[in-house]
């Protein structure tokens, strides 16, 4: 900080002549300075503001990171005995202090009341994740800690993650293999569960592959008939021929569908013969098929290595599978795919538009009032609320352009809209509109920063204006333009509000890219990580259970944006180096 004895400061703040006074007829310099003149308070304010800013951002990032990173770590199952004799099993989730009301205080025993009073009227309670929603009708319970008489962590309690109904916490009482009841044997269970999951995945594969192809062709045949009807009229010979031909093929396809369906049914029947008998702490039991068990572990009997295994297997599932239980469990693969695809598509639209506009405004347009107005308008566009872009995208892209496209090119599918509703194309166009001001402004700045001497040098060598721009100005400005694109990407990938109107949905089982011609389906709606966060956090049935997923998904979205941006930055630096060596 400022030190008065520092000669540099002294010279700066007390220039000759100032602050000098006469003492005993001699000029004496007074080496003090006004605090505001040294700028010290301002320095402290700036530094403080920066520190607060960094603190806020880093604590936010830390919160997301910590909550996200710890979610998948397996938690122990506590068996809690209450003073009224009730026993319950659950994962302790969090605890808090609370102030018991008069009614609760009156119901307490003397010692308990004394203890609460000693704590200033506060008691503590713990939230247990008791799971077993199918049996209990709830998943979480608050238990006041003073009612707990005993807590134990028995090693025979298992946590089961099920395909449906969420988690089950309880004991394994037996196995039913091939409809034969047998005693529980961990190794048999492990083997049979793995096989059952393989069968489950086999059904998935059959449904995706062969059945999917048949269904796709069925749809094509139906559309072909409808097309013939629209083109030739309902009572023309062509239509009847098309119907006869189409129906014959439909019959054939349905016969094949029947065959595969019976295969699937056979696997399903086998699945039903292999079950596991589970018992919750209260004694009620269920007997789900083994194929319904996604993952299970003895929650209190895990080595560190086991825990790590479960942890990474959960991450694997999260990153590579589809959601289940209305998005609150399973994975987010469709959402990851949707986010990346939408952002990439947005860059494809926004880059040429933004750069060309900036080039024209900076290099070609005559700088005058009109260009200033355009520039101000572009800058103002950046301040329009994003939801307004969403409304525009819905009204113009989907309802105007999309509906016209449907009428012209997909009349056979009407009234089911193809392009006439939200989709990944319209969503990325909307976001491109939203982010184009950022790109224009950044590109203009970059172009303006190219020294005039370079342009003049190029022109003096006989290059035309376009050649100058193409070979001198653009390469020099490219890193700056890339910076604009990176900012646009970051903004676009994190934007959710307008997307909700133009194509993001809670459940979109078909990815925008698949194995059916034309392979890329830009009309399809898609899932998005940002919307997924909103949906799981604010729309899911059990918001308590959704909370950890919110953090994990946020962490993932942040990671994805960082990854996309780093890639862009690496490309930018490559370009910088490439062009740095290629011109004088």
């Amino acid at each position, binding site marked *: 900080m400022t030190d008065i004895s520092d000669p540099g400061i002294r010279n700066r703040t007390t220039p000759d002549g100032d602050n000098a006074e006469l003492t005993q007829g001699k000029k004496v310099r007074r080496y003090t300075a006004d605090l505001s003149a040294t700028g010290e308070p301002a320095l402290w304010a700036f530094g403080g503001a920066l520190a607060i800013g960094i603190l806020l951002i880093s604590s936010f990032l830390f919160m997301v990171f910590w909550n996200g990173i710890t979610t998948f770590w397996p938690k122990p199952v506590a068996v809690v005995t209450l003073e009224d004799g009730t026993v319950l099993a659950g994962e302790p989730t969090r605890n808090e202090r609370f102030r018991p009301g008069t009614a609760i205080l009156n119901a307490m025993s003397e010692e308990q009341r004394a203890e609460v009073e000693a704590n200033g009227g506060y008691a503590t309670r713990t939230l247990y994740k008791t799971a077993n929603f199918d049996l209990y009708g709830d998943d979480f319970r608050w238990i006041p800690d003073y009612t707990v008489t005993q807590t134990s962590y028995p090693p025979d309690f298992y946590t089961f993650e099920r395909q449906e109904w969420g988690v089950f916490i309880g004991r394994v009482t037996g196995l039913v293999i091939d409809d034969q009841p047998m005693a529980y044997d961990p190794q048999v269970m492990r083997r049979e569960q793995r096989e059952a999951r393989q069968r489950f995945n086999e059904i998935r594969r059959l449904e995706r592959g062969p*059945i999917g192809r048949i269904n796709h062709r069925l749809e094509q045949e139906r559309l072909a008939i409808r097309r013939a009807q629209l083109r030739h009229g309902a009572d023309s010979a062509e239509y009847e021929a098309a119907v006869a031909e189409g129906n014959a093929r439909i019959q054939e396809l349905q016969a094949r569908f029947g065959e595969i369906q019976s295969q699937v049914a056979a696997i399903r029947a086998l699945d039903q013969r292999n079950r596991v008998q589970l018992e919750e702490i209260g004694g009620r039991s269920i007997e789900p098929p083994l194929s319904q068990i996604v993952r299970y572990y003895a929650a209190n009997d895990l080595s560190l290595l086991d825990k790590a295994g479960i942890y990474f297997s959960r991450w694997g599932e999260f990153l590579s599978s589809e959601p289940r239980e209305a998005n609150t469990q399973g994975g987010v693969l469709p959402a990851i795919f949707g986010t990346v695809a939408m952002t990439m598509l947005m860059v494809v639209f926004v880059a040429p538009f933004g750069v060309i506009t900036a080039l024209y405004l900076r290099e070609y347009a005559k700088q005058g009032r009109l260009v200033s107005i355009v520039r101000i308008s572009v800058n103002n566009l950046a301040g329009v609320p994003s939801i307004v872009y969403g409304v525009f995208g819905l009204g113009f892209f989907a309802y105007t352009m999309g509906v016209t496209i449907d009428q012209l090119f997909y009349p056979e599918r*009407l009234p*089911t*809209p193809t392009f006439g509703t939200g989709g990944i194309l319209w969503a990325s166009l909307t976001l491109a509109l939203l982010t184009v001001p950022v790109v224009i402004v950044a590109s203009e700045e970059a172009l303006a920063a190219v020294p005039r001497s370079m342009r003049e040098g190029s022109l003096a060598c006989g290059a035309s204006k376009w050649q100058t721009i193409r070979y001198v100005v653009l390469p020099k400005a490219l890193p700056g333009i890339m910076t604009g694109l990176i900012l646009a990407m970051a903004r676009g990938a994190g934007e959710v509000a307008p997307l909700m109107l133009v194509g993001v*949905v*809670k459940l979109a089982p078909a990815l925008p890219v698949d194995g059916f011609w034309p392979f890329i389906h830009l009309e399809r709606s898609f899932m998005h990580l940002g919307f997924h966060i909103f949906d799981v956090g604010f729309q899911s049935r059990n918001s308590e259970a959704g909370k950890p997923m919110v953090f994990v998904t946020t962490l993932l979205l942040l990671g994805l944006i960082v990854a996309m941006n780093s890639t862009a930055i690496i490309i930018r630096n490559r370009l910088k180096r490439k062009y740095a060596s290629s011109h004088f």
Partner: protein
Amino acid sequence: MRTFAAMLAATALTATAATADVSVDPNLPTYEPVSGVSGSLTSIGSDTLNNLMTLWAEGFRSHYPNVSIEIQGAGSGTAPPALIEGTAQFGPMSRPMRGTEIEQFEARFGYEPTPIRGAIDALGVFVHRDNPIECLTMQQVDAIFSSTRNGGLDDALNTWGEVGLEGEWANRPIALYGRNSASGTYGYFREVALFGGDYRGEVREQPGSSAVIQGVASDIGAIGYSGVGYATADVRAVPIAASEGGECFEASGDNAMAGDYPIARFLYIYVNKDPNQPLDPLRGEFIRYVYTQDGQRDVMRAGFFPVTNGLAEQDLGIFGLMN
């Protein structure tokens, strides 16, 4: 509008309400897949039904893997325009369509939209988990939430003391949480609990059912309404009495089905069905799936209450789906 209880009586539902545990009616059929169902379905409408539609879609797709189903839920108010524009085949709504909405639909197609009643919901009035309130009457709920007080109480209720709480609660102000106006829950609650009146300006309007619960959970003086399926351990549903001195009923499945709980409702899916033409197999099979063991188990998974076979047969009959 006919009341929920009257509609229940009309469908002879009350006879089955004696069972203690809510479970799926064993008379409902199990789903038998048929061949030749493919295509895409879009559902736009209620966010209360969002999760349920997703579960139904997941279940339906386990039978028809390449049927693609899209689900958007921004509020019941978005369902009628989507059906009229043809952008959706299903319009889930947590309230019946209004007269004007039906008229608009009729003006376009010449017939009315057809609803199916896939599930029963009890609208819970939730308070913070530490709130000791034992019971509220409908009139009190009205005087808490409404500015018009059509329920008949003279004064607005502003503190918990005014509804009978003592001690530290007596002076604690009541904080109101509710849904935004596109929501069917908003409309239904206004119609039934507010006796058609208006909400007070102080109600904090939340974007989702779950957001109401989270708001109530974090505010000790809060009260809010939301589908009972969204309840968490952080909030408590207050038993409701239909009138002063009447018996208080928990927001449970039995009470909802029996018509005792005063703010229970059906959850609808509206479908554009031409009465002169059979329903296409895709939509038909989906509706059939809703009224099966699996479909109604999904209802319970979503936290709502299943319907009975009698009601299912009635609705399937309207669609010509009874074999």
